[in-house]
């Protein structure tokens, strides 16, 4: 295990954990610490009389700590890992103490149990009641979409010129209505509509983009049976119907060595959304792992480390253009720095056309592209491919100087996220190594 500061800190659930983790990456804070082939552990003197016992399963990158924090990983886990990444020599290689080995064996047992008892008898659901509930929900969503469509048509009839002056309740009421209608997906899309910066130039286009996307989902939902089965799943997901993760896990996944290209975190109303972008080394396909948790109450069991690689079986959510996946099994493996990807922007846009053909309401994708050079042109930054074709970099991209420093004017293989004409680099292959930005 050889992690950089950036990789460890990228695992932090929030800024305060990142800061506290850094403070705890200090040998003086740890009463004892040790490392074995599969684990890292330490006892940290906190405010209580007994030190907190922090343990990390380095094989699957899982954390456990006796502290009361509900964050995941907690500051102790981050501090310990950071300390190890900075001063590995200060850790004695030894047999794990009982509190670590017990946890490790429990984890192994649990994993085994999960694999062998998947077929165990479960309580049979009342299918009749389930169908009735499903029917009632479909009706509620249908009523909700009809109301949302009316609202949209009123808006279009009267014009959107006055939108910047509208009271926040203009959107809020309809968002709440979508929640009531059990269409949280549409509520989320409406939230994105409400969050557009109406005082920035170009808000009109951003607004129309999102309005059309909502319209497409409504139309899709209202004509669901006429759509291809895979697209039906996308529309259901976008409306807000969830897919059973347990059922998904029953399916056979795609096994590969997956490079964790990057992580993007967004937060809305205390709900933290973590997007992990993956790339299959052999399958050469992208994947998106989404993790949701309420800020400060993370219960995620496995953390992915940006810049690392995992051997994992991924099950993709049903979709006309499958991207989102869940991890069925994973084992952290040494970083894989091999590159495979598109030769240039032309191939990227062709791939997007293919997605757009089957899924008109697709979201940001991840692409690995060869030989891109950041260049300054017409008062903004662009990424130029080997055929001198350009795509703009998102104006909000924060690491342009790091990217430029790594490039030095020479092309780099790059991992970017985005769609259409806006992209954000998340990592580069620099000197035969993948580096997150």
């Amino acid at each position, binding site marked *: 295990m050889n992690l950089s500061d950036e990789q460890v800190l990228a695992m932090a659930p929030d800024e305060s954990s990142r800061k506290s983790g850094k403070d705890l990456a200090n040998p003086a804070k740890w009463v004892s610490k040790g490392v074995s082939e599969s684990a890292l552990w330490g006892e940290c003197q906190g405010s209580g009389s007994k030190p907190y016992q922090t343990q990390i399963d380095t094989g699957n990158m899982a954390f456990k700590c006796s502290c009361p924090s509900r964050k995941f990983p907690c500051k102790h886990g981050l501090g310990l890992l950071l300390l190890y990444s900075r001063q590995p020599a200060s850790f004695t290689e030894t047999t794990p103490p009982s509190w670590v080995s017990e946890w490790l064996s429990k984890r192994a047992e649990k994993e085994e149990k999960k694999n062998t008892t998947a077929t165990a008898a479960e309580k049979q659901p009342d299918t009749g009641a389930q169908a009735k509930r499903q029917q009632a929900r479909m009706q509620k969503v249908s009523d909700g979409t009809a109301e949302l469509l009316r609202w949209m048509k009123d808006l279009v009839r009267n014009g959107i010129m006055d939108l910047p002056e509208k009271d926040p309740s203009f959107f809020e009421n309809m968002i709440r209505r979508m929640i009531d209608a059990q269409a949280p997906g549409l509520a989320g899309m409406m939230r994105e509509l409400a969050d557009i910066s109406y005082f920035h130039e170009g808000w009109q286009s951003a607004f129309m983009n999102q309005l059309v996307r909502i319209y497409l989902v409504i139309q899709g939902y209202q004509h669901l049976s006429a759509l291809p089965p895979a697209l039906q799943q996308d529309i259901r997901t976008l409306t807000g119907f969830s897919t059973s993760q347990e059922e998904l896990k029953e399916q056979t996944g795609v096994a590969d060595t997956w490079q964790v290209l990057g992580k993007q975190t967004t937060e809305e109303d205390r709900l933290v959304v973590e997007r992990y972008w993956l790339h299959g080394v052999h399958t050469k396909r992208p994947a998106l792992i989404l993790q949701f948790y309420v800020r400060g109450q993370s219960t995620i069991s496995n953390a992915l480390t940006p810049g690392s690689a995992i051997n994992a079986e991924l099950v993709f959510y049903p979709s006309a253009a499958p991207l989102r996946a869940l991890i069925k099994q994973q084992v952290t493996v040494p970083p894989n720095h091999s590159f495979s990807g598109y030769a240039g922007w032309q191939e990227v846009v062709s791939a997007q056309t293919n997605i*757009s053909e089957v899924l008109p309401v697709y979201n940001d994708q991840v692409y690995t592209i060869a030989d891109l050079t950041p260049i300054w042109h017409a008062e903004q930054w662009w990424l130029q491919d080997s055929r001198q074709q350009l795509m703009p970099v998102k104006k909000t991209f924060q690491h342009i100087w790091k990217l430029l420093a790594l490039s030095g004017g020479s092309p780099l293989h790059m991992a970017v996220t985005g769609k259409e004409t806006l992209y954000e680099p998340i990592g580069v292959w620099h000197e035969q190594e993948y580096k997150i930005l």
Partner: protein
Amino acid sequence: MEHWNQLINTALLGTAKKPAGSAGMSGPLLQAADTILAQADTDKEDKFLQLAAVLYNYRQSGTQPITANVAPMKVCPPETKAYCKPAAIRVLHQVLETESIQLLQLWLEYCVKANVLVPPAQLPVILDKGWRNKSLRALVAATGGQRAAWLGHFNPDWNFSRVAYTIEDRWQNGATAQRVEALKELRVADPVMARTWLEQSWPRESVTVKTELLSVLEHPADPADIPWLESLLTEKSKQVKETATRILKKLPGSSLHEKYWQIIAGAIQLDKYGQVTVALPEITDESIFQSGIERFSSDKTVTDDTHVLYQLISSVHPSRWEGHFHRDTERVIALFQQQESLKPFIPALVLAIAWFEDKERALSFMQHSETFYIDIIPLLPAAQQQEFGEKFFDEHPDAIIEYACKHQEEWSLQLCTRIFKYAATQPYTYNQQFMNNHIRLIPVSIAATLDSITPVEAYHTGYWNNIKVHLGRLLQAKSQVQSL
């Protein structure tokens, strides 16, 4: 994009005023639009939204990269030095977390000494630190390599780093900070050559740069500079004139210094009975007052004449008294201490010793004075500075800390302990920022005794404990830098 813009125009006005249309469309897009617009049982709003959906999909399915005629980017030249090792980068992360510029300076000094460069990924952070802290610029330039200089072309804030290997190269082609450093180095090695370089480039320099470069001649001040410095008193810039005057005041052979001395020599006389008389004659030369000497005393207990004389004595070289009284240093000091008329001017004599950085007389003064004069401390040898600092700490704690902060070498453990014991009683003054700014002087070995240093007042405990935690981090990072 044009169709999309038309659609937005319709959206802005509203379909009630401007229904959706197919103007400007052609081919399959026109076909689709016509089909939508021809629907009899669909209202205007639905038609608009359907058309918008088609255009949206048309646009996103046909997105193309831009092919523009962009001048090729200048590629950064390859580096000739190696990058620092990953272990050094890990230490750098720790250093940056402390936000101590002095620690970063220590880390950069390590890179200079090891002849290695900052790797590209870390350069933006380091360049930004250099931009915010002038004191780091020369070091950043020395460790940034070609890549830092190249980045400076894109970010004007970072344009202080140009690759230059020799002093002459840095002087000719470097950014201001690099030129100042080059001139400083040369000034120590060859003062005359340093002035010659400056004289040659003088007409081409801007006023700000002139002031910055001229200040270099102050350390050490050289009597050979006097004619050129006096010629600068006619410069237009007030800043330049002030700087030249300040340096001239440090040069005993300068006209100004001689004018000062003439007045003093006329005012203070030793008679044949060994008595000193003090009587200031009327000063008619206005240039004396224009040079910064105050005419009037602001203290009612001090006469204007005494005030003027005090200032003049503190501005002339102390060696002059030996010739004037025909006595050696020790006896001059004794005369000042014994003669009632001279006693008020002892502090002025101390100030003169400090102003002219007269180390020899500073030592004599300390040996023959019963009173401790804090201003003399910086002129003493390093070991004695620490010794006197400890000895007189309780009498002048703040002043001794102030001078201790100017030390070139680390504080002794004893002095550091005294300083921290006092700092614990004044945690709002000697706070985390103070520790950040002076970590270079704080010995790592103090970490072992930090726990025993506690404030007197209970209400300072929390604040002091936070400072100690921060100090612990600084010391740990410092020890890591030292172990590289």
